[in-house]
């Protein structure tokens, strides 16, 4: 029936199929390639950049400037402090501000106070 009923051929074939070699080779080919920046990481960076931009825009508002200066922090200094925050700290600060806003109307005062507290705490 079969053209190759040779026992040793079947044995070799079986050995190859059972061995982890084929899978291992395939895995190495994919894993050994240079890695891309993952989609999750791209999203994280975009969101941090957006938060930074929103926070620095906030510092430029007149009322915020006035409130900061009232508390003895120039807006220039506040900007420097913002720039020194890590990604995680920026996200936390931005979340706090969003929560304050979600709690009611946009209350600039609360946003201000949170900002100031956060920045002042870092001294």
């Amino acid at each position: 029936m079969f053209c190759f009923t040779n026992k040793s051929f079947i044995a070799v074939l079986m050995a190859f199929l059972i061995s982890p070699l084929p899978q291992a080779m395939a895995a190495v080919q994919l894993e050994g390639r240079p890695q891309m920046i993952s989609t999750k990481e791209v999203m994280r960076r975009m969101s941090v950049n957006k938060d930074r931009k929103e926070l620095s825009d906030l510092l430029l508002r007149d009322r915020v400037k006035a409130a900061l200066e009232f508390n003895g922090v120039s807006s220039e200094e506040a900007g420097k402090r913002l720039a020194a925050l890590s990604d995680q700290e920026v996200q936390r600060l931005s979340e706090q501000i969003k929560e304050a806003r979600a709690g009611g109307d946009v209350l600039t005062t609360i946003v201000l106070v949170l900002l100031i507290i956060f920045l002042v705490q870092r001294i």
Partner: protein
Amino acid sequence: MKNLKLVLLSAMIFVLSGCITPAMQTAALLAEPPSDLPDVMEIKDITFVNSPKAFCGPASLTMAMGWAGETVSVDTIADEVYTSSMRGSFQEDLIGSSRRHGLVAIPVRNLDNLLREVAAGHPVIVLENLSVSWLPRWHYALVIGYDLKKQDVIMHSGKSAYYRWDMRKFERSWLLGDYWGLVVLPAGTLAATGTEQEHLDATVGLEQAERYLEAEKSYKKILERWPKSLVALIALGNMAYQQGRNADAVGWLKRAVQAHPESEEARYNLKVAESMM
């Protein structure tokens, strides 16, 4: 410092007092109904699932999934969302379970959007508090319709199918549930109201739940509404690359770089993909 605390305290009181006024969104909506919303809407063909006791979460999600084409038993969903020690289901687990079933879960956070989703034929899971804020009694229900003339919402809720409830009363209970709502859609469908970011979050969630086929479908659909979506373009490139489809990967990433020349990530990933060609 003392002054600061006083300012914060008074600000908080002001915020909290905002919660006392109920049903503000209903009032605004009924006073000036958006012209593009039909007066009456009811989504047919949603199989009602009776929810005994604390099973309102699993029951609501099972109904929504059934509508989306994913037929599952309420017990299966209960295993995925119900936390017996809490005698209830967490919102995050409802979202997670949807993703595990390959569905796109998009938040719905105000009355206008709720009605718009229903008008588009999408049932909305809502979290209500049927008691008072300091002694909550949480309840999930599925909004399947509304009637602006009679000022009702229509729901599958608890043991009642096609239950009609006064919109103001509904809003009060939903407000106490922090206006938490969710549409659960088949992959390749967009919510009527969700933002680009919300759709991306939902789709990245599908990838994390290892539902790659659905994720790919969903990213492509996102590009129909937001053709320049950087994340969707990069994600499609990354997925193609991971599956060894290098030419496809280059194609998507080239589009990403064209639409967003400023994106370092798009340029970097394109270089990587091109190096493998």
